[in-house]
Each structure stands twice: as structure tokens, then as C-alpha cells.
């Protein structure tokens, strides 16, 4: 179990490369949510990508180089809030592993301790209380495998949705099963990935939920692309945008 710090005055936002290019509004919405909590949000312009593509493909040297570059940007002792469980897992767990036995290990660990995924930060550090201002609706959530198994934040994401009085949270079959993205896995083993995402979209659609949310844009690229290919209307959006909208911040 992770021990959470007291609420700070300022936080860093780590947007992730996928939010940067595919859903920048989710980044702005996360900033608004954090500001509503009375926090000053600092976005370091020089941030790029956490290095996961290189790491999971076996290019540890390149991944370490990218990781070092990111860590050097966040010099103040403020929390680093990440808009994805998967990049959060990379920066919270795998950075530690990559630098094990190096001279900089202690500093790296200090950085890793400061990394939080958005929902766990809102729930466990901000102790957020959401007031639902929206109409009745239903939602189904997809949690990335890293968010679930490395960061354990499917719990906090659910807690946030459960705070919304007018939102019915629907459960899908095989909820914890992978959507088949896995970064390069989707293109290295396209047919296995296809079988997985087709099952995932079927289970999500079967819930008949009005909205699909996720806090991971990797999975959303996969799931949304498959939904659109199949001609289905369901499209997932980032949880930050949904939360901000429900609480009238937008």
C-alpha cells in the first residue's frame, strides 16, 4: 500500500505524448480539475514522452536516456500528476527498475515516489468531493492493465465515478481483461490484438452505457479505432473531461 502525502500547494502536470497529440482538451480539463482543488498547476514545456515505447521493445538504454531527460525537468519537490495509468506505471515503477544499481538510484527513487496517476491523486491526496451537476446518464469504464495492476488506480477511478449521484456505473464482462493494445504488441501481433479488441468492444457495447470513459489514451486509441471501424457510435473519452463536465467546470 502506498503512503500518500498531504495536499501540496503546487503540482506538476505530466500530459503524456498521446494526450498531447490526440486529446489535448483532456490535459486542459485535468488542469481545471486540479485548480478547482486550490492547486497551482505547473506544466513544464520541455516534457515529451516517458520512454515506454523503447522500454517495452527491449531498448533499455534508449529508454533510460529518455527517462533521465524527463526526470531532470521536474526539479521542485512537487508531485508529478500523470494523465495515464500506463505512463504513471512506467514513471512510478519501471524507472526504479531501469536505474537499479546505478549511482543515481536514490534520486530516481525519490522522483518515482512523487509520481501519481490523476485519479489516485484526486482521491488520495486532494480528498476530492465531487458534486454532480449533470443529468442522469450511464457510464462504462475501461482501465488499462498498467493502471489496474501496476498502479491499482481502477479503484480510485471507480471511487470518483461513484461520487457522481446521477451517473450509473455499468459493469462489463471480462472487465479486467486487456483490450489488446500493448503498444507495439498491436502491430507486431495484429491478429491476436484484433481478437482481443473485438472481444473488448463487444463487451463494452453490450453494457449499453451512454458513455465510455478511460484514463488511458493508449487503450482509447485502440478501442475507439475499433468502434469506429465497426461503425458503432460508442466512443471513449478521457475521464478528466467527463469529471469536469459533470461538476459544471466546463
Amino acid at each position, binding site marked *: 500500500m502506498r503512503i500518500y502525502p498531504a495536499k501540496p500547494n503546487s503540482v506538476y502536470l505530466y*500530459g503524456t505524448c498521446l*494526450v*498531447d*497529440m*490526440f*486529446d*489535448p*482538451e483532456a*490535459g*486542459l480539463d485535468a*488542469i481545471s480539475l486540479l485548480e478547482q482543488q486550490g492547486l497551482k498547476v505547473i*506544466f513544464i*514545456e*520541455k*516534457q*515529451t*514522452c516517458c*520512454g515506454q*515505447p*523503447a*522500454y*517495452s*521493445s*527491449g*531498448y*533499455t*538504454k*534508449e*529508454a533510460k*536516456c*529518455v527517462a533521465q*531527460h524527463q526526470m531532470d525537468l521536474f526539479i521542485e519537490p512537487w508531485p508529478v500528476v500523470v494523465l495515464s495509468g500506463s505512463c504513471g506505471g512506467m514513471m512510478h515503477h519501471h524507472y526504479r*527498475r531501469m536505474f537499479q544499481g546505478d549511482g543515481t538510484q536514490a534520486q530516481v527513487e525519490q522522483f518515482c515516489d512523487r509520481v501519481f496517476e490523476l485519479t489516485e491523486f484526486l482521491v488520495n491526496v486532494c480528498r476530492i468531493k465531487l458534486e454532480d451537476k449533470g443529468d442522469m446518464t450511464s457510464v462504462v469504464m475501461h482501465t488499462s*492493465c*498498467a493502471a*489496474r*495492476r501496476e498502479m491499482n488506480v481502477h479503484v480510485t477511478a471507480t471511487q470518483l465515478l461513484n461520487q457522481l449521484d446521477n451517473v450509473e456505473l455499468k459493469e462489463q464482462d471480462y472487465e*479486467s*481483461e*486487456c483490450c*489488446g*493494445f*500493448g*503498444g*507495439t*504488441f*498491436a*502491430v*507486431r*501481433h*495484429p*491478429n*491476436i490484438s*484484433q*481478437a*482481443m*479488441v473485438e472481444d473488448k468492444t463487444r463487451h463494452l457495447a453490450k453494457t449499453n452505457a451512454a458513455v465510455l470513459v478511460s484514463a488511458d489514451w493508449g487503450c482509447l486509441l485502440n478501442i475507439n*479505432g475499433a468502434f*469506429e*471501424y465497426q461503425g458503432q457510435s460508442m466512443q471513449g473519452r478521457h475521464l478528466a473531461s467527463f469529471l469536469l463536465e459533470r461538476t459544471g467546470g466546463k
Partner: protein
Amino acid sequence: MGHVPAGPELFHAQANAALKDPQLRQNFRGAMDYLQDKRKNAFVDPVEEDKIRTLCESIRKRCLSKLPELLEQLDANCTRNGIQVHWAQNDKEANNIIANIAQSHKARTMIKGKSMVSEEIELNHEMAKLGIECLESDMGEYIVQLDGDKPSHIIMPAIHKNKQEVSDTFEKHLDDFTPTVDVDELIQTGRTRLRQKFHDADIGLSGVNFAVAETGTLCLVENEGNGRMCTTVPKVHIAITGIEKVVEFLSDVPPLYSALTRSATGQAITTYFNMISSPRKRGELDGPVEVHLVLLDNGRTQAYQDEEMRKTLQCIRCGACMNHCPVYTRIGGHAYGTVYPGPIGKIISPHLMGLDNTKELVTASSLCGACGEVCPVRIPIPEMLQRLRTEAKNPPKPDAMPMKGQASAASTLESLAMKGFAFAATNPNLYHRGAWSATKLRGLVPNNMGPWTQCRTSPKLANKTLHQLIKARNKQAGDK
């Protein structure tokens, strides 16, 4: 449909064939759902589950940390008990040892209990060359053998078949069999046919689940009773095991046994648990007159030598990682083309067969972590895969022993691409210019993006990047 796996290097073709077989897909999904449920019901209290896994992990780690001395102790204590111990470096040596024992008894037939290690050394095939017939007596193995096939799962060898398909197999190969989908009748058919074979066999061969160094005892976990028949009825019993199965104390066995059966089939205990500590003693009425133990390395020391990869050897062969793997569920065990399929197979097979033969397997995971989450001895399988991917791409460090097949997946093109990625991701100006141009040119994203668009539309880039939006937002705030 009796297809014999051709090998891990043909993984893509084999996986694709499996994906296109709706019956196979349905059989595996059904079976894995069932086994997942069984495991869930066996571990109802997460706190207890956590405790058991931690305890079992520590037992396996302790035993592996003393592996060489425990093996020597096992050898000494087995020998003292009258069990003859043999060491085999590879499959060839193991087969020679077993062939010599068989020939010294002029044996023509061997009845086998379940043993994945005997699959690993292709014992049946090698013995057939010498005119020795091996007959599988585990029901799943028996079915698979009738088909001329190989197991598709390490604890349920015929799980790729439904009852109709089992009936079809029996109808094809057994005389006087009336087709039925009654499971009890099917099992009874197999049992009846095997009964006389136990009696007639010259040698019984089994695997080993735990080999206890302290007492020189071989433990066998099973449900059907055929293991007990193999190890007591024939005059000679040969047990074969990988060197990693040794445990230090007798008291190490109960927790591991409990974790094994609960993780595998959701059982608190199995119908049979056999402990073999010696051949038949003077005055005893049954049991073999000779017991042999063959200890097989076959690449395991490669895993042992590396402190991180040593965790691979913690495995107690429960199969839970397979039962929970979304990839295994969709392609089944044969597609892997290895003796040990699924997540654990992906991390064991490179040591047995070399990374050059298995490099496709180590990439065939979305690293979802379901395997690590259920492993009763907490093998961090995704981390091991990560490590093997690195070893497949890079030459060994100057101070490290090379792995078999090391760097065999090295690709100049991919390596350049990754260097390019690292360069861009550490040069923010370049990175942002790239992201900016991408959003500007987003109308040009092609509809056909190869493997990605075979079941998805191409991703839609945003109008502006987050970096741009924040710049504008900050400017607006500054202007106010």
C-alpha cells in the same frame, strides 16, 4: 484435429491458424473461464491469498538460493533410501539414461504418468526408435497420444478438445467404442483400456512435483490414480524432473501443494498425493523393486546463473498464468510450438531452446500483467519478458555470460528508429516541432496504416497539441 506443433519460430502462422478456428476459440474460452472461476473460489480471502503467495515465494526463493547444495543433499538422501540418482545435462543424456535402464531390464513397454519433462526430452519418440513402446496413462495425455498430438496445456493436456471431440477421437482409434458425450462414460472407457496395460508394463515413468532434499522423498500430485499405478505396479519406476523442483524441507511441501492445487484447478487438495521414498522393502507386498530419479538441466542453469532470471525457476507448474492469459485464451497452447506454452512458457523456453528460436514468443504479450497477478509464487513474468526482449535485441555486456541466442532479434532498422525516438524525446524542440507538424498535417494521416487499420480506423490527431493550448491559456491568463 490432431495438429502437431511445428515449432516456436512459426508462431505467427500457428497463432493465425488457431485464431481462425472458431471451435478451438470456443473450447479455450470456455475452459479458461471455468478454471478462472475455480481459482477465484479457492482464494476467497485476499489477505490469506496474499499470505500464501508470499510464503510460497519465499520458500521457492530460499530453495533456489541453495540449489546446488540441495541437489547434492537430495542425491545423497535418495541414494541412502535406495533410489538410484542420475544427472542429465540435456535431453540426449536423459534419454540415454532411461534407455540404458530399460535395456538392462529388456523392457518393451513403459507406462507413463503425467510428466512435462518427458515431453521436453521427447521420450516417447526416442524410446520408439529403440523398440520400446510408451503409453500415456493420464487421461488427457492418453487422448492426445491417440491423436498423435502434443499437450496444449501443462496440467490439462487435452483441454483444447470438447467432449464431442474426445468421443470422435475414441471412435477413430478404439475398437468397440460407441460414441457418447457422457463424460463419465468417456473416462471409464479410457480407464478400462489402460487397466491391463499397467499390469503388463515393464517400466513405470512419472514426473515429480517436489523432490525433498531433507528426506530424499519424491512427491507426486495427481487426481486420477494413474500416477500411483505407474509408480507401484511395474517392477521398475523411473522419475524424471527438472533440477529446479527440489525443496529443502518436508515442511516446505504443504504450503506449495496447497498453492499448486488451488491455483491450478481450484482444489483444496487433490484426490491423490504420492510420496515415494524408496523401492519396495523386504517383506512389502507391492511397489517397484527399483526406483530411479533422473535430474535434468537442459538449459535451467542458464536461468539459474542470472539472479533476475532465476525467478523463472520458482515455477511450480500450476498453469494459472495460462488460464488467465488473454493471448493463450485466444490461440491455445499448440500455437506456441513449445512444450511449456503460455506466459511461463515464454520465459522458460528461451533457456531451453535459445532466444533465436523463441524471439517471437517474448514479444507476443501485451504485458497486461494478468499472469504475474495470479502466479502463486509471484514470478514477475512481465518483467522477465521485458528482460528477455532486451537480451534478444542487444549483445551481452562485457562482464555477462551470453544467453543462448542472445541478440538474435537485433534489427538495424528498428534500432535506428528507437535511437531516433530517443533523440526526439530528449530534444524538446525537435519533439514539439514534430508534434506540431503532425497536427498541422493531420488531414494527411493515411487511412491504411497496415496492421493497425486491419480492424481499426487510423487515429485522429487533434487540431492543436496540449503544449500549444497551454501556451495560449497561459498567455490569456497573463493578458488579464
